[in-house]
């Protein structure tokens, strides 16, 4: 919660730290005339002390009111709300792909260290270097324009059509994260496999299957859950690139557009929402970790 509070101050304060008039920024790059500036000042209460205007902005934000965009001439919350579904769908799609593929590959690589492990390690090392926008180019070239299996651009309408449209973006977005989750999972599982309490289990004649389930996966689930959560949170940032690359009209694309047009009201609102998403996901992960590990129960309290 503290994190979110500080983050909101930083996001709001960002426009005050650069030299010059914040009002100029809010007008959004267009040539400011004095009257417009004064109007903006009044609208955003910029003549009030910083804390006062910040609190006003924050209390609005909590109610879902982020003010009005000067570039789009419509309420920021409406702009966001109309695009949120697409983005959430994309993130959820990618997240499911990442967790299933990443954790699966990671466990496989650790458990069958000799054969699958080597291949998976090599593959994930390369995958980790493949950014979303590069994968987007390759996917479009191969699956869309090349094979024609998937649409090139757009988000589609209706659930199945949307999912079909979002498949390439989701996989492009998921690609390097799969590798990341797989590598962390592999390391966590391998650490447990080599741990002394697993030796004890072997020495007591516990069957391999049970060792894997009760002692290895159970104990490795903490770090795996943590990276998975972090990854999902990170996806909210990554959508900016994926949406831009595939011409999808989501929150991420809106963020990029507004940044290019220096429409601060929108940038502030979206960053706050994304950071909030990150914090919430991480809090959930910490909560789960506390349930999973009796030793963490005390630590998670803070």
């Amino acid at each position, binding site marked *: 919660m503290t994190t979110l509070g500080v983050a909101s101050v930083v996001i709001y304060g960002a426009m005050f730290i650069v030299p010059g008039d914040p009002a100029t920024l809010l007008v959004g790059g267009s040539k400011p005339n004095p009257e417009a500036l004064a109007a903006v000042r009044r609208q955003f209460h910029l003549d009030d002390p910083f804390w006062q205007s910040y609190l006003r902005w924050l209390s609005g934000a909590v109610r879902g009111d982020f003010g009005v965009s000067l570039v789009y001439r419509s309420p920021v919350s409406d702009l966001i709300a109309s695009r949120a579904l697409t983005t959430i769908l994309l993130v959820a799609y990618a997240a499911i792909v990442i967790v299933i593929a990443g954790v699966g590959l990671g466990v496989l690589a650790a458990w069958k260290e000799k054969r699958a492990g080597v291949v998976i390690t090599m593959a994930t090392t390369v995958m980790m270097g493949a950014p979303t926008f590069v994968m987007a180019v390759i996917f479009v070239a191969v699956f869309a324009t090349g094979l024609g299996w998937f649409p090139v651009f757009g988000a589609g309408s209706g659930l199945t059509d949307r999912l079909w449209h979002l498949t390439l973006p989701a996989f492009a977005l998921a690609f390097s994260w799969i590798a990341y989750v797989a590598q962390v999972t592999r390391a966590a599982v391998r650490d447990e496999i080599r741990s002394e*309490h697993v030796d004890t289990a072997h020495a*007591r004649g516990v069957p391999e299957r049970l060792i894997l389930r*009760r002692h290895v996966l159970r104990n490795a689930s903490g770090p795996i859950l943590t990276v998975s959560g972090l990854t999902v949170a990170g996806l909210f940032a990554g959508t900016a690139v994926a949406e831009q690359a595939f011409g999808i009209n989501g929150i991420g694309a809106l963020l990029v557009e507004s940044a290019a047009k220096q429409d601060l009201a929108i940038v502030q609102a979206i960053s706050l929402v994304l950071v909030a998403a990150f914090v919430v996901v991480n809090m959930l992960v910490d909560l789960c970790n506390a349930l999973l590990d009796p030793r963490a129960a005390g630590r998670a309290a803070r």
Partner: protein
Amino acid sequence: MSALLSIDRLRVELPAAKKGMRTVIHDVSLDVQAGEAVGLVGESGSGKSMTTRAVMRLLPEGARLSGEIRFDGISIPGMDRRALRRWRATRVGMIFQDPRAHINPVRTIGDFLFEGVMLDGRLSTSQARERISHLMRAVGIADVDRRLNQYPHELSGGLLQRVMIAAALTTEPELLLADEPTTALDVTTQEEVIAIIDELRRERGLAMLFITHDLDLAAAVCGRIAVMYAGSIVEEQKADALGLATSHPYTKGLLAARPELGRRERRLQTIEGRPISAFEVGDGCAFATRCPRVRDRCRQERPAPTQVPGGRVACHFIDFIDAAAGSPAVGSGGGTR
């Protein structure tokens, strides 16, 4: 009569960090009879723990093993997975040095104990509960029900080691392997834990292979002691015959180097140099680099174990030692420097 556990010319090599293999055990032969307690004593790196790991088939991946280990006549290295698991689950119990690392931290004490009992497959849940409570009380844990619901981090090291002992005994094994079970504990706790192990072992007529670096501790609970140095057993003796005239120079050196209550010397007698690792041993006697009475032959030829009254000693000059020694315990080596 065949021994319960019979280790015959065991040799173990491990893959080295860089390339090739490193010998960690050269030649270990040791029998443990049913109901007998044998101590395996050595300094760090002597290969004593690796010997127990070889017996339990817990060697690291890539390890190469030769020689034979038999339990009740059955070859352990030759067991298939099923048989190995069955054997581990029912006929042998192991106590490790560091209970905190060796018990799964995210599972309760109850989970840990029940896991072992239920593997046996012969007991109903209520019988299992009965046996566990009984064992918990036997190792001196009073508040059984509360303890079963606790996690390892809520228990002290001494208590956790008692849990480990109880766990090792739940399936009523015939052999107990104890790998430095008290090294991580305070002296007073050590005495308790050792007493518990000794008492329960005698009550049940269990055989035990007891690994430690402390000769006196081994002698207190074992009938026979094998002393290891650099991957080989240099001496095997009845516990009460250790350090007597026919003892190996290394054993004598160890006994003399250890300060002892009730005996203050101006200077302790020392063994020169440092303990070497098994892979550093050349063709000769492993102890040749430190032995006070080393001869040319020692550096060239590895001594075979020789029968002496009470046991076997691997030294070329065992007769000479016998003749030279008048008093027990202290070899004259340290004094003539």
